[in-house]
């Protein structure tokens, strides 16, 4: 219980050394009126054996299903080595590497991670993680306000084709500092942001333009044109990208003539299990010129007293423990272990493995969409290329269809109705490299079945 190692004799000796009669006496400074005697609402302890049985039963209740949902979290193959290594006690039970000399493992790993992420996004520097993709967008918006010295408006343009949860998180986190997030519509036919939508901001003071690539519909935005438009107006470009897609797609650092300024995204596709939504990690990279505006920890390589290379946390003057109220962010604990896993994952994947993964996911999604749209009453909602997600339009409501699919062990996608009612019956589907031709056929057949049932019901 409580993993406390003390024996009676230990306690007696310790109390004597302190010079008190009882442990209770150590709490004498707490006003008596405030003390409680027991935590009624907490159940009695389970030992590990009971706990194991409880958790196994709950996990089995949740079961395993064939999942075609994406929408910001993606089922990818995760090599067994990733978590076998990441859960080693030396990674798992260490903390932020405040004592560099006793934390070279974590520090060097973070330096390697920074290198990988900078290269993947074609930017110059990376931090050591933020909480997740959505909160990273909020941080990027705040950073853009600090970094864009030529803008005073704190106005951030955000296309509606950015994940609605990301937009909401950005508002919730950054809205209180007076940032105004203004929404750009998407084109009915492509689901992407038309440059025309920007015309009304032609002469306005805009701090930053957010560009998601792929966007929430899986579609590919015209990143070059959008980026150049923003830069021409001294707005910064905040890119929100899927890191796996970057094996195929143009990295933000190369968007338009000058490249994006700040890049963020959800790190989950890089070796992190779906886990009902977390822990994942947010990544952020930027140009060297903005590094002092970047939130989060940063590791640098330096030398020790013998001149040997070593690693340490650096640029800490940006952080709350030094700068307090003037820090670039309040973030302290980040998602270190997830980054550990992602670094191992990226090492195993390399450029070729990541490219194959991206290409396979792209190909599987196209096969899926072709299979589903071969059914009567099922069509693509948008035209134009996608990465590994697409929107399917149905001629019946989505919710009952999804439920019928679920009963057949298939998680058929994300119902877009709540966030995009204007699309009618629209379903966002995703197939990664984990899906086989047989899986796709199984989905198609089940969907045919469910549609038939729904129509006759």
């Amino acid at each position, binding site marked *: 219980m*409580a*993993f*406390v190692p003390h024996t009676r004799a230990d306690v007696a000796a*310790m109390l004597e050394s302190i010079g008190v009669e009882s*442990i209770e006496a150590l709490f004498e*400074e*707490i006003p008596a*009126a405030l003390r409680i005697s*027991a935590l*009624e609402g907490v159940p*009695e302890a389970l030992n*590990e054996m009971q*706990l194991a049985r409880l958790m*196994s039963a709950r996990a089995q209740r*949740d079961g*395993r299903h064939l999942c075609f*949902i994406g929408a910001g*979290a993606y089922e990818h193959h995760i090599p067994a080595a990733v978590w076998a290594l990441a859960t080693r006690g030396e990674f798992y*039970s*260490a903390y932020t590497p*405040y004592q560099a*000399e*006793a934390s*070279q*493992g974590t520090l*060097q790993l973070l330096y*390697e991670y920074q*290198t990988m992420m900078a290269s993947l996004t074609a930017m110059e520097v990376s931090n050591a993680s933020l*909480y997740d993709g959505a*909160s990273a967008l909020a941080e990027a918006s705040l950073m853009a306000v600090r970094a864009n010295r030529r803008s005073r408006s704190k106005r951030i343009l955000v296309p509606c084709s950015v994940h609605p*949860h990301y937009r909401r*998180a950005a*508002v*919730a986190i950054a809205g*209180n500092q007076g940032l105004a997030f203004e929404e750009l519509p998407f084109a009915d036919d492509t689901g992407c942001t038309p440059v025309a939508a920007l015309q009304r901001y032609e002469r306005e003071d805009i701090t930053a333009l957010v560009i998601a690539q792929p966007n929430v519909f899986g579609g590919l935005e015209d990143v070059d044109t959008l980026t150049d438009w923003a830069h021409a107006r001294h707005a910064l470009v905040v890119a929100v990208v899927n890191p796996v897609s*970057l*094996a195929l797609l*143009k990295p933000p650092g190369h968007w338009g003539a000058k490249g994006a300024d700040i890049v963020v995204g959800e790190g989950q596709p890089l070796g992190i299990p*779906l886990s*009902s*939504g*977390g822990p994942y990690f947010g990544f952020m990279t930027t140009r060297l010129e903005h590094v002092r505006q970047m939130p989060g920890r*940063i590791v*640098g390589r*330096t030398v*020790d007293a013998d001149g040997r290379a070593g690693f340490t946390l*650096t640029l800490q003057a940006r952080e*709350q423990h030094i700068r307090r*109220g003037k820090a670039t962010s309040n*973030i*302290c*604990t980040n998602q270190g272990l997830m980054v550990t896993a992602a670094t191992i994952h990226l*090492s195993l994947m*390399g450029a070729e493995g*990541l*490219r*194959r993964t991206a*290409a396979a996911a792209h190909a599987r999604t196209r096969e899926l969409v072709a299979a589903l749209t071969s059914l009567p009453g099922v069509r693509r909602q948008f035209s134009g*290329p996608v990465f590994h997600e697409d929107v399917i339009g149905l001629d019946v409501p989505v919710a009952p269809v999804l439920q019928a699919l679920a009963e057949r062990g298939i998680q058929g996608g994300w119902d877009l109705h709540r966030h995009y009612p204007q699309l009618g019956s629209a379903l966002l589907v995703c197939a990664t*490299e984990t899906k086989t031709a047989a899986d796709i056929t199984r989905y198609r057949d089940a969907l045919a079945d469910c549609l038939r049932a729904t129509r006759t019901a």
Partner: protein
Amino acid sequence: MSIERDNRLEPLIFDYSVPGRGAEDQWPAPSGDAAVADLPAALCREQPPLLPAVSELETVRHFTRLSQLNFAIDTNFYPLGSCTMKYNPKACNQYAMLPEFLARHPLAPEAQGQGVLECLFELQEMLKAVTGMQAVSLTPMAGAQGEFAGVAMIRAYHRARGDLERNEIIVPETAHGTNPATATMCGWVVREVPVDAEGDVDVAALAAAVGPKTAGIMLTNPSTLGLFERRIEAVARIVHDAGGLLYYDGANLNAILGKVRPGDMGFDVVHVNLHKTFSTPHGGGGPGAGPVGVAARLAPFLPVPVVARRDDRYCWLTEDDLPQSIGRLSAFCGNVGVLLRAYIYMRMLGRDGMAKVGDYATLNANYLLARLTRAGFDAAYPRRRASHEFIITLKRQARDLGVSAMDVAKRLLDHGQHAPTTYFPLLVPECLLIEPTETESKAALDTFAVAMAQILAEAAQEPEHVTSAPHTMPVRRLDDVRAAKQLDLTWKPAP
């Protein structure tokens, strides 16, 4: 010694990289160019990213060796003050990582997640019991985000009442850096109040500081000085009387678990650091989880989603159900895997185990303090009881022997002891903030005390050996100044 160090150091993963190599078993079969021919060339990547091309064995060996360069709870005593480096039970990891839990998509149907939702619901209930609050949201992803949720709810509360004047958050000067940083992030003006010579908040100064602009106060109790704020009731009264709310920074909850609850002390909103008090892993810097609990009047403002039970079915409540919510703080529902670990830990502790945590965390801190004072170290607050942690100040040693708190910290590494937190709180010069936690044995504390005593002796006899420490780590003391001046933040291939 050079071969010794060489053997322990590990090259960069990029040093192993050779074009054409790779862990092919991890890759899907190539799809062929045709598979991606539909992607417009202008949107495609031209140069592959600079990722290592290494074999699976090289990867495993590299990261195994890197891991061995770390001190961790699993290898060393780690009394890092304010961080509650207690044992992370292996069961928490194993059962949170059951294949079904890992495979579940956040947007999967609730019917196919009743197991995990039941755990989360019960976790909410236990956190209510532990904090004395009325409602809980689990979504904040670390302490700082919990703080943010807290002060954002305070803001939403005042706004909802039409009380638009309030724009100040009061913070004691000893506060953790995240507190003022969070307040700023939430658009508040930060107002610091001093603490008195005994470490308590200066009540007179507080009374003078509050007013119609006061939105609330952020406080941790025990404070970052490792001291229980004795006049907490007075503090609560002053702030409440001024119309402000009290926010409790739960980073130090371990000290008082099962003894006294923030809700009973008068706090309106609380965050709990699950990675501290509830032993989810620190992971080399995270992930954490910072659930927030609130008094009834703040419940409508909780960040979404929140788990509810309806007729024996568990479901998520979202913005549609909680229209006054401060909103979403993450894309999905926070760090669920961390929440499961805390759930497991709390179920294993149970009601009685929780009280033991507070008891033994406090016993360990006071015992170690007693030993260290006897060994000649100066307690920062010698007339106070330690809570779960305490501060010693090396001001005297720095002056007399030229040996700083940082030197002692580094020399501790040579003794196989992770250093305490250094130079925090900023108020105390040359300080070490020492938090042993309840899971360490008396023997472990004794070993640490002996090491400290030896270092003190060494500081008197051979101070250069202390000031040039560490001597036995894989690297010697690192040049932080150079790190910040000659920025080297990513590896670049030789041109």
